[in-house]
């Protein structure tokens, strides 16, 4: 199989997971789509020098997170509004009485780096050192960011769920 065919096979199999991660990091489907497209383009250009195809998923994740870090820095001044207030609790749906949506809405209000820590730790199931490495921050920062997010979430959960 030539390199192009290998890339295409990887794309078909793995793009959905990349899309999901991008959506959770960006919080917006359009931004997520941009992130994925940039990531795939960079991965495509780097494909020929990736000797170990088993590492491609991790490599792609790193590019995605790196792109996301760049994008939040570019847009931080004009778009990010950090607030301590959790948005209105969404309407209940058939999944879980709205609790998961409330938690997701909370996650969406987190500052970008804190959100990235949460997504990598609790969705990608990375360890603290792995999360620190991917984000280029210290393990201590990962711990403190996660701790703050959890504490904030706990404080904003409906009373009966605490």
């Amino acid at each position: 199989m030539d390199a192009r065919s290998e890339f295409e096979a990887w794309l078909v199999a793995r793009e959905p997971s990349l899309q999901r991660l991008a959506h959770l990091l960006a919080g917006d489907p359009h931004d997520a789509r941009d992130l994925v497209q940039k990531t795939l383009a960079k991965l495509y250009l780097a494909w020929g020098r990736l000797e170990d195809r088993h590492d491609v998923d991790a490599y792609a994740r790193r590019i995605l997170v790196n792109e996301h870090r760049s994008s939040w820095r570019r847009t931080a001044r004009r778009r990010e509004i950090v607030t301590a207030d959790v948005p209105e609790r969404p309407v209940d749906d058939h999944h879980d009485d709205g609790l998961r949506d409330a938690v997701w809405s909370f996650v969406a209000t987190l500052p970008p780096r804190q959100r990235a820590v949460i997504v990598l730790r609790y969705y990608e199931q990375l360890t603290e050192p792995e999360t620190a490495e991917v984000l280029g921050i210290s393990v201590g920062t990962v711990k403190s960011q996660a701790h703050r997010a959890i504490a904030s979430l706990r404080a904003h959960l409906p009373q009966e769920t605490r």
Partner: protein
Amino acid sequence: MSDPEQLLRDALQDRAERTSYDATPLADVESGAYRLRRRRRTVGAALTAAAAVVVVVVPLAVVAAQDPETVPAPAPTTTPSVPTPTTTPTTPAPSGGPPQIAYAEGDRIHEPGGRVFQLPRDLGVSGFVAYRGGYLVADARYFEGSVGLTRYDAGGRAVASWTSAGRPVSSADGLVTTWTSFAPPESGTTAPTLVHVASSTGDGPEVTQELDLIQPSVVGMVGVDVVIEGGFGAGGVWATDLVSAPRRIEVLDRATDVSDAQGLIAGSVDQDAIGRVVDAATGEVLWERQGVTVSAFSPDGRYAVATASQGGRREIVEARTGEVLAEVKASGEEHFPTLLELTWEDDGHLLGDLAFNCCAHLGRVDLDGNITPARPRGEIGGTGFVFAATS
């Protein structure tokens, strides 16, 4: 009581599964990759096209103006006094032959093929690249981190100058040149601090971006990004595509070289105590080593040079892993020479500026670390050699 961590896991999983996505066609990925490449190469491509028009159309126009039956075939076209590109050649350097890349010695730039470009003033050379038919030369007038940067035209005349830091660098293909400029603090004048990217022949547009850094210097070009060292103040290593705001490469405090071919950045942290090689796309630290400075990637990016902080021992290492392949040594000599500068001539040889027995020597180093002369020995007290900088 709910476990907040489990709630987060469930909520994120739920959100991920409930969102639908359109698959990206391979053609779209390839188109995006093409655009990425094109953003950087636009300037160079325009130049190449313009040069091709000059080389092809002008002789054809001359032929067309005459009777085709009486006109002999046009003589081969030669390019008038344009310096040889300073990018590394693809053909292996002959052992013991003259250098296959340009190098500066004093106020002269020696080009492959023997031509010598004479600089009008002997201000020293700390770096240079072929630019707009002449050269862009960083001189040796160091003052608190800054140097003078002068553009010389094909005739050797100084036609523009800036205050800069570090040295100008060309892209790996030689088509694009980048450098920084700023107003020196002691001048009392104000001017923006800029990173410049321009066609190496000057026929395309010059693009600049203002930097919020003090006396930054260019390290090289990786993909669409220019990698910059921050200088005083914030310092650090930054990457910019000149469109978005520069982003900091947080795993490096300083940078020494880049490999466009492999997408790598070499640098250091902890006040140069630890040398690192970093993947430019992801920021991942591929390897690090205490007590060495990593620099000088080979043109194909497979190799780099590691220099010990203590003693200055040089090693050729595998760029992506740090595996030591050879120690640079002086074959047949009693003592090791001091290597002042080392750069790659091609994928299998380095050129070294050697200080040995009080003389400046130009040596060629093979992948086994053996040094052979690349030029007759220089004079005692010579100024040494400086090589063109490419990414």
